[in-house]
């Protein structure tokens, strides 16, 4: 339901515009079927990620083919493995180099919370550096878990509103 503040806007009387919602549906349909991953494997989770990309599990079924090693071309950052303090600025930079819209999967216990490496040298969870969309527990998680995370990302893309995302960004800049 619309809240009080939105009542003054014209869409409160006419309902959401047909043109924009259809365009959003169309964009989401395309984005949902073409999430190019950026593999960022730093530890054993990377091996499981490779298994998920290979023949047995085949992430390419969902369009997640063509692993883009250039962050400019990727949509989903799959962070698989331990992030040390040395690696922290690099991961942050890679994330910032990715083009909007972008999503992040934090794969494995080390990426989610630092895992067993409760030391001075390890980042205690990558969500202290970059925003994360889906966490996968496990040490390392099986490829099925990565596939489920990808499907969760796809569902999240389906509920996205590209127009409002753009608009709020515009207002934030003004």
């Amino acid at each position: 339901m619309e809240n009080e503040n939105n009542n003054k806007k014209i869409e409160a009387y006419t309902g959401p515009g047909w043109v924009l919602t259809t365009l959003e549906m169309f964009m989401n349909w395309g984005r949902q079927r073409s999430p190019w991953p950026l593999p960022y494997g730093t530890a054993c989770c990377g091996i499981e990620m490779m298994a998920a990309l290979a023949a047995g599990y085949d992430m390419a079924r969902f369009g997640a083919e063509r692993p883009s090693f250039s962050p400019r071309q990727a949509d989903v950052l799959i962070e698989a493995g331990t992030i040390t303090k040395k690696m922290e600025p690099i991961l942050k930079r890679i994330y910032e180099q990715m083009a909007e819209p972008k999503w992040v999967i934090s794969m494995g216990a080390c990426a989610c919370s630092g895992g067993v490496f409760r030391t001075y040298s390890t980042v205690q969870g990558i969500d202290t550096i970059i925003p994360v969309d889906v966490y996968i527990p496990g040490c390392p998680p099986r490829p099925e878990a990565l596939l489920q995370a990808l499907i969760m990302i796809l569902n999240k893309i389906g509920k996205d509103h590209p127009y409002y995302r753009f608009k709020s960004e515009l207002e934030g800049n003004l």
Partner: protein
Amino acid sequence: MIDLIIALIKVVGIWSFTLGVAAVMTWVERRGAALIQDRPGPNRAGLFGILQPVCDGIKLFTKENIVPEKADKVLFNLGPIMFAIPAFSAFAVIPFGDRIIIGGKEILLQISNIDIGFLYIVALGSLAVYGVIIGGWGSNNKYSILGGLRSTAQLISYEVPWGLALLGVVLVYGTFNLREIALAQQGTFLGILPNWGVFHQPLGFILFMVAAYAEANRVPFDLPEAESEIVSGYHTEYGSMKLGVYLFGEYVNITTLSALTVTFYFGSWHLPYINMASFLGDGTIIYGIASFLIFCLKVSFFLWLFVWVRWTVPRFRYDQVMKLGWKSLIPLALFNLFITTLFIQIKYYIGG
């Protein structure tokens, strides 16, 4: 006026044909890779994932358009355009069928029947390198410039055997006109073989195919975008639809090269041993359509060959590529040219 309308229809038709083939090729490549690697491949968008190129297009069009701060803005934006234009333009002189005669008016199934078609093709082939090197230079990125330089060296090296191999065919048929080359391939050669370029020039054909894979920057010659060495090569900094144009231009290049292979070496629209024009009637509409379909069938085989080779052969090392180009292909191409000239001379003196 009527000529102008016919020309316009042909231009728009071929334009959409190449675009459509390139779009379908991205799907064929991904499903073909899946077939060879024993996995299902993309199958979520439409039936058998046939709408995958559409999804990729929508996603690339709606992605953020990043121009790096330190990049040369003009060259960065010019790169994909310079890459796509030669790829599309080369199709203008390739005959995609015989002719249709309507009301005494002859319509050639070819956009432009120029006498220097061969030179035009070779010139545009070397022009394609500018898109790559400008994109690599304009990005102001280490990996991009390395990819661009590699591509330049590779294309210049393989342009030579490519052109020399084609020159053999030109010597055999005695014309630069692509339509006349296609017409000359009717009938039989030595009584048993079809009169195709591949039987006149078997060595030339192999050289041409090897050089064509290098021209298209395809595996095993995809040095300019070697992922394990230089991230994505010349298009490392490109995102959104500019990347899409680069990827798309590659498939347009492949289509053009396949069409060239068919025109020069596989008898264009001719079927072996059958003279279609005699029993379908020269110049009828059904003959025009049939010749176009035969041409498409042959082209699609070579398109599939590109995919097949890509997922079968590993990548060359850089020095191996150069060694193969300069030490093997160019001497062989010169040898092929020499032998061809010799045979033509002998035939000339014997036959009078």
